[in-house]
């Protein structure tokens, strides 16, 4: 192995450690309380994971939280982009999740018709 090959291995393998670095640009938090799961939060999460993975977005981490009392709007997803307001999306579906990844996480524009709250 040459030094260049070592650096290529590092490039590839460093994705394995992304989760542990804690320096992600975007944090997506999915409400996975009982009502969230009942309303389909698992599918939403799966769609997020799939889309993030397909697009190879290494600076995005996905975490979950419990219900926030917005049962009528579940599944609820919060998007925290570093240096921006927190955007809360409601009544999410798998398709909408993919839309949020493309328009918000990649292109930087919140999907306004799904937004239920914007927090400082």
């Amino acid at each position: 192995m040459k030094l260049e090959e070592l650096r290529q291995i590092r490039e590839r393998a460093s994705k394995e450690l992304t989760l542990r670095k804690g320096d992600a640009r975007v944090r997506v938090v999915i409400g996975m309380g009982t009502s969230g799961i009942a309303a389909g939060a698992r599918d939403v999460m799966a769609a997020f994971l799939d889309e993030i993975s397909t697009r190879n977005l290494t600076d995005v981490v996905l975490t979950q939280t419990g219900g926030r009392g917005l049962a009528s709007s579940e599944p609820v997803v919060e998007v925290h982009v570093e240096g921006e307001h927190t955007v809360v999306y409601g009544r999410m579906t798998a398709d909408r999740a993919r839309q949020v990844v493309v328009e918000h996480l990649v292109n930087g524009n919140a999907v306004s018709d799904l937004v239920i709250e914007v927090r400082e």
Partner: protein
Amino acid sequence: MRRRIDVLVCSGAACVSAQSAAVRAALEREIDARNLHDEIRLVETGCMGPCELGPVLLVYPDGAFYIRVAPEDAGEIVEEHFLKGRPVRRLLWESPDARRIAEGKKQVPFFEKQHKTVLSNCGEIDPESIEEYIAAGGYEALGRALTESGPQKLIETIIASGLRGRGGAGFPTGVKWRFVAQESSPVKYVVCNADEGDPGAFMDRSLLEGDPHTVIEGMQIAAYAVGATHGYVYVRAEYPLAIKRLKHALAQARASGLLGPNVLETDFSFDIEVRIGAGAFVCGEETALIASIEGERGIPRTRPPYPSSSGVFGRPTLINNAETWGNIRHIVLNGAEWFSSIGTSKSPGTKVFALSGKVSNTGLIEVPMGTTLRELIYDIGGGIPDGKALKAVQTGGPSGGCIPAEHLDTPIDYESLQELGAIMGSGGVIVMDEDNCMVNIAKYFLEFTCDESCGKCVPCRAGTRQMLNILDRITKGEGRPSDIERLHSLAETVVETSLCGLGRSAPNPVLSTLKHFGDEYRAHIEEHSCPAKVCTALIRFVIDAETCKACDKCRPVCPVTAISGTPGTPPYRLDAEFCVRCGRCAEICPFGAIHIETGPVKRDI
């Protein structure tokens, strides 16, 4: 589907003893049962530090830190946390608020004050995966050393960094490298001293278990700098997990072309062999260690010649301690200036300590040099359990000394500790509270060195034995008025005339306790009293007639039937002549009616 959670399961030896493997297996079952194995990965890591609280788990990306996890907890963790996103609060350290959980383990005071350099990968990556080591920046320093730096510049960098040997003596590492580089021999050796033998020390073990590649990389860089082609890691047989992971790492490095002939396809060839020691304390001494590597009996010889000119098989040999090796790649990557900006001017960098004894958070920690003992014990260690008072801190193991509580604000560096009669040593820190008898502690350490003395030179072999005899009679209440002076003069002779470091430092625990706790010695000798109520020959258990309720709890537990009485008719009586002072009666008494007395028996006249 992409992974969303990394679960780091601590697999340091302490957590392994606490059944971390069963916890891991249970987590795996629960994850499989919910079909989450694509989303969640279990990673076994090296020691995370808080050994007392094991088995511990660290969950990324949210950084939740679980302590004392049992296999039965796995279902709840997977269901509640991994599936529903609600960390299981009862298992979290300190049950912090939600915000703190999200911010991760750095918010836990134990981790907050630490500065992990040598241990930066320990507890964060899988020690059995070379890919993870490479991903975390591994072997980049070696690559740069081989292609950019050149041997001369590497040695200059290490000298400029001010790195000093982490095995205890604190000799400037770069200077040692230069000595070996200047030798013109065609064969030279590089040795890692991982023969960690101090009671209560587990720094080298944890490093080899948690991040073996970091030691390998340090040795390789040095071998290139000094012109060595062969290396040895000398590690004791009592460390089977460290040996296993080290051998695994060596095999991986070889298979990847990072070790062996033409490393990274350059002209540099170097390989490392593991030598397993049988666990003799004296083999931590470099000349004894070399003898042991050569297949001889592990006994030291006089120096000079120093190993740098005549070491393994008579060839120039560079010996550094495992932790010293762990610093090298960081210095090469970040530069000498970066390194010397950490710690103090005379003792730059960080130091790994194994914190044990009477302290709440025992475990493995790394702090900048110059951190005070108070910060170490109270901020990171969480203070003394059960509201007891701190009495002394023992550093440097059997070669070190006891530092009394009034010197707690001493910054930890080589010189400050030496001034107090202790030494930095390899990093064992044993905390003692008011229940520790300092004479007994000195006796304990001297018993150890006396036992481990190789017997080659008289002062160490006979001198430590004579000192031990004196300590033994003092703790039995048979001390003589001249004993303190005799201990001093014996200690002086042993220190000055012993052949190697073992003998020269063996009297330190006695000398430092005599210096700081002379009153305790005098109390034992003159008043036949043990102020800490530890020395069994000087204490007696007494039943307080007023407090005793004749509940009959103590009588059946006494192994020698020294307690007699009738249930319901207080007080019970304890026959001091038969009592073996095991203390079980005092432990079981619900009314605290049995206490310990020491010193001359007071009688009502």
